[in-house]
């Protein structure tokens, strides 16, 4: 199967038509919900937290964060970043509770140090392995992203990123950038059969 990442930059791939298709597909919604619940389980947040959602898209994960029951440590308050204005438009249409920025995570995370209790990213950061322009390398964009993500978390804050690496090289490129930034990146393969779900749990101490 061809990977969208190899063909178009994300803001062009996730245009109005694709963003609507993505957001309204019940198959996709179920998969993204499962992965968000898995990420929440790994984050193990005990009280209502301030969370960054990296590549938040149309807010499928955010909606779950907003609806975590008090008994389960919620509800959480989140801020999302995404490069696709069409995805964000879908989120607006669905009236999500989080704030959103139209932003390229390869340009860094523009929050002051220690802002967030935690960060999640579901199915987004593999896009950073494809550089959009010739004057920036994927390595430098990944570095910029992970360094600033690390700084934006409070002490002890965690980030859980689920992503789809194309191959072993992309996978180590991503985890190396995370480790260099200071994260204790552990890659967890939930679904070794299909090699589709990989969750590096990153911890900041």
């Amino acid at each position, binding site marked *: 199967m061809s990977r969208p990442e190899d063909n178009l930059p994300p803001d062009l791939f996730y245009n109005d038509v694709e963003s609507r298709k993505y957001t309204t597909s019940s198959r996709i919604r179920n998969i993204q919900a499962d992965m968000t619940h898995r990420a929440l389980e790994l984050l193990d947040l005990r009280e209502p937290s*301030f969370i960054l959602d990296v590549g938040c898209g149309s807010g499928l994960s955010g909606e779950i964060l907003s609806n975590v029951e008090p008994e389960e440590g919620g509800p959480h308050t989140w*801020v999302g970043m995404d490069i696709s204005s069409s995805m964000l438009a879908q989120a607006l249409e669905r009236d999500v509770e989080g704030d959103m920025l139209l932003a*390229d995570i390869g340009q860094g995370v523009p929050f002051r140090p220690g802002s967030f209790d935690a960060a999640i990213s579901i199915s987004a950061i593999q896009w950073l392995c494809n550089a959009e322009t010739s004057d920036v390398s994927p390595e430098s964009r990944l570095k910029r992203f992970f360094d600033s993500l690390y700084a934006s978390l409070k002490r002890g804050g965690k980030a859980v990123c689920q992503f789809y690496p194309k191959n072993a090289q992309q996978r180590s490129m991503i985890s190396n950038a995370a480790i260099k930034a200071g994260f204790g990146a552990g890659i967890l393969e939930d679904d070794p059969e299909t090699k589709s779900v990989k969750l590096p749990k990153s911890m900041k101490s």
Partner: protein
Amino acid sequence: MKLLTLNFLTCARKSCKSSPAAFPLHPKDAELEQVETEMNAVFLRNILPRLEWEAMRSITTELGLPNLPAETPASEDLVEKDGNGDGDGKDDEAAAGPSQIARDLHALLMETCIASGKLVCGNCGHEYAVKEGIANFLLPSHMV
């Protein structure tokens, strides 16, 4: 965008990173909107120590909102001193609901939103446009 978020956002340019003037971003031609949300007292208590109160004060002044007190409210100011409301200071634990301070903070941080306008960096002068509550932080490559 909630004023809460504005209290954490900085200019995205690398050259502004170490400049104290890059935070907070200054609202310009801002259109405010009040969006009702449910009060989350535990979240408020969690986020309170992380707020930059001075920035909060300057942002509210720039937006023409009522002045905030000089001091950051303390965690214990968020709960009603006397749960039963008879003012005798007893029964504090019994029904400790959110105080007026907590309700005001909730209204300011969680419900007061910038619907449109600009956010301006005090260091480089770059203006980030806000439309439908969403701030555009995409930088042209020569500014990254």
